[in-house]
């Protein structure tokens, strides 16, 4: 009886070891490639919110971290030209209808929005996913705005007394996005010196 148990243990253990080695090998083979893909993804989203003409560096490589009001580290990608910061991009998070909406916000040195794009969200297809620029131009309308224009109390959806359109049938998604962008601009205003400082 005891030796039977031993056999099962050895069989199971051998299979675990064998397939463990196979998986470790696969990981070794694909690891670099997967990291490369992640960098490409990042660059692809950075290009959308920082126009290539304003910088001569690679913003994906010029990274600083700044603590926000809640004490959380924010990773900031900086675009520089001639040694001066011309624009920065960082991730902002809004509360959507189905969990967090991850966005990337690009701002120039004066605090004007260069672009906003959703990078990850689970909003309802056909309603909340109108924040996708392939579906509507809604998210492109942020470009050129800043915290003073419109004034901060207008940084809301129309239903809440602000100036931004909601979608018919979906208010929560645009409200989350507008709130996140407003928060992102306030973060820029509060840390402007630190964000633009070249060290």
């Amino acid at each position: 009886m005891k030796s039977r148990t031993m056999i099962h243990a050895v069989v199971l253990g051998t299979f675990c070891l064998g397939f463990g080695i196979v998986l470790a090998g696969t990981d070794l083979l694909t690891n670099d490639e997967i990291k490369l893909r992640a960098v490409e993804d990042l660059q692809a989203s950075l290009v959308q919110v920082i126009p290539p003409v304003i910088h001569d560096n690679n913003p994906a490589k010029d990274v600083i971290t700044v603590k926000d009001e809640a004490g959380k580290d924010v990773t900031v990608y900086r675009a520089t030209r001639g040694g001066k910061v011309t624009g920065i991009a960082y991730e902002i998070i809004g509360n959507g209808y189905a969990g967090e909406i991850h966005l990337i916000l690009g701002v120039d040195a004066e605090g004007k929005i260069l672009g906003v794009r959703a990078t990850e969200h689970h909003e309802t297809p056909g309603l909340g996913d109108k924040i996708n620029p392939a579906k509507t131009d809604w998210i492109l309308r942020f470009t050129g705005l800043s915290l003073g224009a419109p004034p901060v109390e207008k940084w809301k959806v129309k239903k809440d007394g602000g100036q931004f359109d909601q979608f018919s049938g979906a208010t929560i998604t645009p409200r989350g996005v507008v709130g996140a962008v407003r928060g992102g601009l306030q973060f820029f205003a509060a840390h402007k010196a630190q964000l633009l400082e070249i060290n």
Partner: protein
Amino acid sequence: MANNYRQIVKDGLWENNGVLCQMLGMCPTMAMTTSATNGLGMGLATAFVMATSNLLIAALRGFITQEVRIPVYILIIASMVTLVDLSINAYMHELYKVLGLFIPLIVSNCLPLGRAEVFASREPVLPSFLDGLFMGIGFTLSLTAIGACREIVGSGTLFADASLLLGHSFKFLETRVLPADTGILMAVLPPGGFLFTGLLLVGKRILDIRAGKPIVLAGAHSV
């Protein structure tokens, strides 16, 4: 369960179809069929896992003792899934962004485990491989069909983004069936998954009755 290759192909694709007869793998069937392309991608990944895991299990079955066979099967299936997951992430990254979240779920799909236990643990290597492959292709066909129906009704398109999955030469598959914004949203939401899977089950049942086949309760087929 004869060693009859023609029967293996027929069983896998139609007569004992994983979704429409055995009613296994319902989780990916409902979750991943919001479009024909998603269904196709999920199906192909599952088919690959089933073919390779069946092959490995049939080849190694001499070493697998009866008492620990289930953990070993799961180990083999999970290894294959991880392999697929890493490879798709590395080499088909666009597809990974669509399917990434769901590929690990293949482990919990009962269909690969079902075929391992019922078929691959008793049959030689080649029939087992073919069984896994054609059960997988049958699964793919069902998912693609459900996805196509839901996509047409829900978004008014067919095979949207197929070029992300299959490459640019398949751009021609992407068609718009109905004008934009006319879709019935519910079809691509979770209830649509149940509705359209049910409708397809009815469809298959009608065809079986027409063909004069004996009617078996869904899920009561010999797996």
